[in-house]
């Protein structure tokens, strides 16, 4: 068994991420869009911590993934929901883990089909390296390195507590 690096504390990272974003958001004008499923949970936390007024959106980027021709349509695809006008807005895409950057590319493509934001940022809890596209987060309180054979996922307990789990692919 390869030695596991200690997993970050997801709750502490949510707080650190909110702190990093605080001076850069306008509670009356900034909108969040969480990527299913972990990003939606993180966006909920950030929305409360930053006192944002615009309701957050959620996106399931399955319709925009670049591996559709290899893997087909993901099971359990959910509807995306953007409850605000993207045109001219300051939007922050929120996800739990930044890895290859392909999900973020898909999310940006999808978001632009709802309108042209004035400014787009990316907030993630952790960056696990392994980027395959030229994408960098605007806000990211933590980074780590994991082998490609492992998957890092955010989980939510019944009481709403967030934690990370590593799975072998």
């Amino acid at each position: 068994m390869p030695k596991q690096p200690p997993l970050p504390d997801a709750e502490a990272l949510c707080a650190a991420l909110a702190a990093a974003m605080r001076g850069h958001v306008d509670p009356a004008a900034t909108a969040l869009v969480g990527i299913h499923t972990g990003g939606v949970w993180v966006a909920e936390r950030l929305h409360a911590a930053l006192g944002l007024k615009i309701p957050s959106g959620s996106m399931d980027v399955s319709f925009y993934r670049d591996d559709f021709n290899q893997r087909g349509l993901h099971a359990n695809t959910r509807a995306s929901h953007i409850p605000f006008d993207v045109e001219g807005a300051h939007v922050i895409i929120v996800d739990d883990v930044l890895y290859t950057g392909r999900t973020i590319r898909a999310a940006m493509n999808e978001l632009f089909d709802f309108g042209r934001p004035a400014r787009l940022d990316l907030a993630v809890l952790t960056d696990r390296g392994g980027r395959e596209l030229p994408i960098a987060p605007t806000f990211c309180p933590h980074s780590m390195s994991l082998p490609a054979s492992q998957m890092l996922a955010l989980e939510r307990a019944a009481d709403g507590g967030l934690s990370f789990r590593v799975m072998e692919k």
Partner: protein
Amino acid sequence: MGAGNPQLNKHGELNHLLTIEGLPRDVLIRILDTAAPFSEVAEREVKKIPLLRGKSVFNLFFENSTRTRTTFEIAAKRLSADVINLNINTSSANKGETLLDTADNLAAMHADMFVVRHASSGAPYLIAQHMGATGRDHIHVVNAGDGRHAHPTQGLLDMYTIRHYKKDFSQLTVAIVGDVLHSRVARSQIHALTTLGVPEVRVIAPRTLLPTGIERLGVRVFNDMREGLRGVDVVMMLRLQNERMQGALLPSTQEYFKSWGLTPEKLALAKPDAIVMHPGPMNRGVEIDSAVADGGQAVILPQVTFGIAVRMAVMAMLAGNS
């Protein structure tokens, strides 16, 4: 094609959609679940998603259709596919050979999907089988209505509509009313309803418009409309298919309306929250009264809208299962 169900590939995934008959329940549920997020695409500024970008979908309509062809075309275009519509006259002789020759020619143009409507039962199956036998399993076939046999996407969009309004199939009583004999829609509906676990499926029709042995599909037959409509949750009307009638099956359309037309007075026998469905095009004053068609219980136009999402889901699932 897979050894068991010709519609499934070796992984048990949907490779063609030819008929609902014999499709496992989980495949039907998967299609309905998958259709839900596609309905959201219509709400966007840009009503298009890139799943089928660079793919060519050929609408092969050997029989006329406006609604079905249009909704398949919209569905394929919203998936970013290139759509080519062919309305092919069926009067040419030697249909079997012509059909496969047509398919071969379009396959040579790098078709990725055929949407086939044909007056002969089994035509889409024949194309799918031919593609499989010639090593072109990556070309998917969707049956858009074949003869009296099947109209699977209509059956699926009807199930989507029922689930949208009634949430759960397991407590429902559903009545299918009208010209069952000539209706591929009715066959697809019956297979879908029984597979999805609807406990009571009723078929209401005059004896002359019922195929023999219909009971074997697991339905209760009523030859009296008032009796059949009592207490139902869903009324699925069928179009009286004048163009398919040969011989004197009916006295007149006026007589038909009197006995088998859905009027507000007959609908009142169903549950107060019953929904009324119709696959279109409607013959007002023949199988359905305008007061019902335009009334608060009718969900006929939502059926059309849901049909686009269901067809998008089917095409995306097939294209992704190469």
